[in-house]
């Protein structure tokens, strides 16, 4: 729990660090579309090469960039095996009891794992090169058009920003409560699902009460300083898109187009 990637912004002066956060956010959304469209080996190769280029431009150490994959390898293995062994196919390569290994299943498993791995690494690069405040500001700018249909963009951006800040805090708190309840006899480390489900009860109620206390204190502090959730907030100078930001978005769009139309 303490090794979560939340808030793992690594300050730097690389090209990706200097890129407009909004360009990075739009780029990530376009990349997600390209990943969903990918289905051929050529398509995956293009995406992996592009992730390699992003990694080089971010200046992040390779080990750090693939850290989320190393933590979730068991999950990837389960996903791959479930697809490979349970995919119904008319011409299986090997069968035993309820298991049926098929070529289609293997391809499907590889597809899911590759897509997931690319998305996780891309998201990790974004979080490592963009501070939470920059992500929030970019999110607010991205949602800005929605204010014309009466969606309170500032409140949504505030919720996202506070939630991002709360993730590591609440993760620590869950860990602390988990330890306290373990001392009292709760079985969180059991591999049996029934024990895990039963252990949820003594964990969740204190977590919610403590989290709501924090929310209450924060709301009181904000109201005491005059914040009412209405009107325009001043949040520093507006950043204008530069040539390099347009270039980055155009490159992402081109990769997505190649993925959909050619590969």
């Amino acid at each position: 729990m303490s090794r979560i990637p939340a808030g793992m912004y690594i300050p730097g002066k690389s090209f990706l660090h200097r890129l407009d956060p909004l360009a990075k956010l739009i780029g990530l959304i376009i990349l997600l579309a390209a990943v969903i469209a990918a289905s051929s080996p050529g398509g995956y190769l293009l995406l992996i090469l592009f992730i390699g280029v992003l990694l080089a431009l971010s200046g992040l150490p390779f080990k750090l960039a693939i850290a989320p994959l190393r933590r979730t390898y068991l999950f990837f293995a389960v996903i791959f095996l479930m697809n490979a062994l349970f995919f119904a196919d008319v011409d299986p390569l090997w069968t035993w009891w309820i298991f049926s290994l098929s070529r289609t299943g293997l391809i499907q498993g590889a597809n899911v794992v590759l897509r997931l791995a690319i998305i996780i690494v891309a998201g990790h690069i974004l979080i490592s090169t963009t501070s939470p405040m920059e992500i929030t500001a970019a999110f607010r700018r991205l949602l800005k058009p929605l204010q014309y249909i009466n969606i309170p963009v500032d409140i949504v951006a505030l919720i996202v920003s506070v939630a991002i800040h709360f993730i590591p805090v609440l993760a620590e708190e869950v860990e602390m409560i988990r330890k306290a309840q373990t001392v009292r006899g709760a079985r969180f480390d059991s591999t049996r699902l029934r024990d895990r489900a039963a252990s949820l009860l003594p964990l969740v109620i204190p977590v919610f009460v403590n989290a709501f206390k924090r929310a209450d204190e924060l709301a009181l502090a904000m109201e005491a300083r005059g914040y009412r959730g209405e009107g325009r907030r001043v949040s520093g100078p507006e950043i204008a898109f530069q040539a390099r930001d347009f270039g980055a978005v155009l490159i992402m769009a081109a990769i997505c187009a190649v993925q959909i139309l050619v590969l």
Partner: protein
Amino acid sequence: MTIVKRSMITAVCVALTVVLPMAFHAVPNAGSVILPMHIPVLLCGLICGWPFGLACGLIGPLLSNLFTGMPPMAALPAMLVELAVYGLMAGLLMSCVRTRKVYADLYFSLLVAMLAGRIVAGMARALIFAAGSYSMAAWTTSYFVTSLPGIAIQIVLLPSIVFALERARLIPARYPKEIVLDGSPGLDSSE
């Protein structure tokens, strides 16, 4: 409750949609059986109302996917629809249903929201996300049979959390006790 407090409660509920499932990731399939991500969304809808429940149901899975890779991208669109409907319906029903009994309001809103979310998510899968390859049997298995422990946990846990929060005075009571203005509350007239 003020809009600021509702926003802050929604923010912590969004954060909990990321944090709570992490405690169960070590067990394979725990997410689809115990459904830890549903609890904060339903609670947010019940306490803060439908706009905030809807926001929590949309933002929570997106942030969780970005920070932890879960739910996987393939399951994310259907999950977004499901959780958004949970938050929306829980909030709408809590504002419409007033039986003068907190338990009745809570259980009615909760159960109808849980059912509506499952129906809409199933329809979304059948018509959009997995058109042509989604069956009634797959819907029943994934949304009712596999997740039965999660459903039971939500039914037991959510009203308990609401009462714990009311007792701690962190949320206002739904039906505040009436205070008799011409005398001390609870005093018998013969005293």
